[in-house]
């Protein structure tokens, strides 16, 4: 079924379909789809994707009988179970959870950092059917763990979450995506960091091979704020990680990191984009990938430095290891710089595991397989050892061991 029919038929299930302004915007989006027809040639974000799957989808959404759970187990620590993208409201003196409102959607329309032809974001806006908003109140230090649960097969969930970290607050956010059903989750996180706030954002992705996950995030950082994001992708199904960050006031920082482990026929598309709009900001984009079997991955990184953003430091690094003849990796580390007093660089490497290192380990009596595994672990060691949460560190180690057990 094409997108327009899909939209008309399911209009009543979609958020904000009463709002005229939003309605107009959606009509424009439908026009974009009609005109562009998912032209792969001129749209890099569609590389390696089996489009049919995403265009001719069958829209299905239901609100589950299972309800979401919000627990405040320890002081300043919350765990949330979001079911099919829904989360019930909650309020105390530190955080507030509500449904997303028309105005949250409106605010986002005006943002032009995200490419107009990013069809997955457009689909999200068009079919929006779930989502919530979390506000971390002033000067609080909070930990939140969110488990994103999808209850049924064949669901198409278009979710939008807003996070607002008020002045001086600090949030440690762990998001888990571990679903084993044949559904598609398209989620957009819009994150706003007020003055002097801090957000450590972990995304752990471990879905089964029939589950599609599309995660897009947009964060904007005000004065002295810091956004750190770490993505761990162990999924066997398709995952798209597109993360945009905007440094809009001085002395803010964005750090976007990710590692992905691919095997079989799996594909993963990744993108990070940092826009420096103010002076004295720092950014860092580091992605590492390990590809086995016939896996394919793309990684686009982009640092944009506005004319006003002097004294910028922006770094990018992309590293890929190909374990098999049939794996392929595409990377495009881009720099767009309009200011002169900057330090920007990127590095990118793709290759096999270093033969000399293997030789060294084998000469010490190790089997080839064991040597390979050790070298893969050391390749990502920096990312793993920087996790300060013991429980999470253990969980990721387990997943790594599971991945390595399939490496020959």
């Amino acid at each position, binding site marked *: 079924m094409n997108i327009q029919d899909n939209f008309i038929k399911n209009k009543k299930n979609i958020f904000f379909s009463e709002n005229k302004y939003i309605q107009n915007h959606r009509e424009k989006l439908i026009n974009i789809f009609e005109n562009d027809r998912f032209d792969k040639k*001129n749209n890099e974000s569609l590389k390696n994707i089996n489009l049919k799957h995403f265009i001719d989808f069958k829209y299905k959404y239901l609100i589950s009988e299972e309800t979401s759970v919000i627990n405040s187990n320890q002081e300043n620590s919350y765990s949330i179970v979001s079911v099919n993208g829904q989360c019930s409201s909650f309020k105390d003196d530190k955080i507030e959870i509500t449904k997303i409102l028309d105005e949250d959607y409106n605010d986002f329309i005006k943002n032009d950092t995200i490419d107009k032809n990013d069809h997955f974001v457009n689909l999200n806006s068009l079919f929006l059917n779930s989502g919530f908003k979390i506000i971390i109140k002033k000067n609080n230090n909070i930990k939140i763990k969110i488990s994103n649960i999808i209850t049924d097969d064949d669901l198409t969930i278009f979710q939008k979450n807003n996070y607002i970290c008020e002045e001086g607050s600090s949030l440690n956010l762990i998001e888990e995506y571990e679903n084993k059903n044949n559904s598609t989750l398209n989620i957009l996180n819009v994150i706003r960091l007020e003055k002097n706030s801090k957000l450590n954002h972990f995304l752990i992705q471990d879905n089964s091979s029939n589950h599609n996950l599309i995660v897009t995030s947009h964060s904007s950082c005000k004065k002295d704020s810091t956004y750190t994001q770490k993505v761990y992708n162990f999924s066997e199904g398709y995952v798209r990680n597109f993360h945009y960050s905007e440094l809009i006031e001085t002395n803010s920082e964005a750090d976007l990191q990710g590692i992905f482990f691919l095997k079989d026929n799996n594909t993963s598309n990744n993108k990070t984009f940092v826009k420096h709009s103010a002076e004295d900001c720092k950014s860092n984009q580091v992605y590492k990938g390990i590809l086995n079997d016939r896996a394919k991955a793309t990684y686009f990184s982009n640092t944009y430095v506005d*004319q006003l953003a*002097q004294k910028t430091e922006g770094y990018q690094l992309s590293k*890929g290891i*190909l*374990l*098999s*003849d049939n*794996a*392929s*990796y*595409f*990377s*495009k*580390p*881009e*720099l*767009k*710089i*309009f*200011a*002169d*007093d*900057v*330090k*920007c*660089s*990127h*590095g*990118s*490497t*793709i*290759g*096999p595991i270093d033969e000399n290192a293997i030789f060294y380990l084998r000469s010490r009596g190790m089997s080839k397989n064991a040597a390979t595994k050790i070298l893969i672990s050391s390749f990502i060691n920096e990312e793993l050892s920087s996790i300060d949460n013991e429980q999470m560190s253990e969980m990721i180690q387990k997943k790594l061991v599971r991945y390595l057990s399939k490496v020959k």
Partner: protein
Amino acid sequence: MNSETLNTLDSYSKNKYKYGFVTEIDNEKPKKGLNEETIKFISLKKNEPEWMLDWRLKAYSKWKKMKEPKWANLNFPDIDYQAIYYYSAPKGFEKKPKDLSEVDPKLIETYNKLGIPLEEQKVLAGVAVDVVFDSVSVATTYKGQLEKLGIIFCSIGEAIQKHPDLIKKYLGSVIPPGDHSFSALNSAVFTDGSFVYIPEGVKCPMELSTYFRINAENTGQFERTLIIADKGSYVSYLEGCTAPKRDDNQLHAANVELIALEDAEIKYSTVQNWYPGDEDGKGGIYNFVTKRGLCAGKNSKISWTQVETGSAITWKYPSCILKGDNSIGEFYSVAITNNFQQADTGTKMTHIGKNTKSKIISKGISLGKSQNTYRGEVSFLRKAEKARNYTQCDSLLVGNQCGAHTVPYIDSKNNTAIIEHEASTSKINEDQLYYCRQRGLSHEEAVSLIVNGFCKQVLQELPMEFAVEAQKLVSISLEGSVG
């Protein structure tokens, strides 16, 4: 700013684009515009055989269906292809002059101004020149000695007449006419250019060179160069470009094809100094060039070196297709943009064969209000076992109104291939500047010295004759925008 700097700036501002003179010679042109008539006119003027005309017309019909590639980071008004003269020859040139005494003295004067060693004593310097003045090749020096070795070095027009077999076999084999709209345009209307064939086992004893110059107003120059290096041969080819100063934008869409067979090596160096437009961004050349080399045989090597200082718009990606096993591709580039210039340049290395290697060194310098983009693609195909690439692209920004951009595409489909890419962008190091100033250099001189040092890796790849000129060009290009 001290008085010394002001003086230097003053002298620089007087010393503008010194190649911006116009030689007044009667030109013979067809009507403006592009249509089948124009192409037939060109073909007729060049006395071409039937098959060549067919080839051109086929390319033209392809061009009609194509759109200009729009992906480059360039901003310019649409080109009106019907407002351009597609052929321009000094009158009375249907018959070629036999030696220099028959050439119009004004022409010789022009070349003297350009500093081309056409005259006898300069020929001793060992450069054989095939001069292209607008669209017709004027004189080819040093031909005799080359002929003895079996080297063919002539204009492409002559080659179509005399060596149709080679032309039929190789023309369009690396850049098919239907590749993109500029290659189709060039294939339809190309007027002149050089043809080089180096026979098996011959090492060309001198550097071959062509000097292109757009003289007539409103003419596009569409030259076509084809270089074939047969088994085990070697050739080094130089290309230099200047154009007079005019307010209109002129179009230059060249195609250069290189073919290196087994064990052959081609070194292609360019110093491009087309008129870049004035301080307000008026006028200047639109330079849309397709250059591609094919390493067809085993152990072959193609090396591109370019110094790009001119043109209002540069759209140029000299690339290598590394098809033969163990073949090597190299790309060294310096691109300097000033005022309102825009450059989108880089390379494409396609690794097909085993053990193929490529190296890319690109240095971009942006000044004034210019935009400088490096765009390069490195791809390893499935069978490119143990292929290797190293890429380094650095950008230097002078002033806060310019932009420097890096857009590399890296694609690996082979797990034994290794690819390394690094890039950095920064401004001139204050410490280095301070050090030079302390040693008594003026600000201008210090910047020039540092920029030359920044480009050294590339400049040292140029043949002797060009290296000196290129260094001077680098300094001139920095004029007026430093301090």
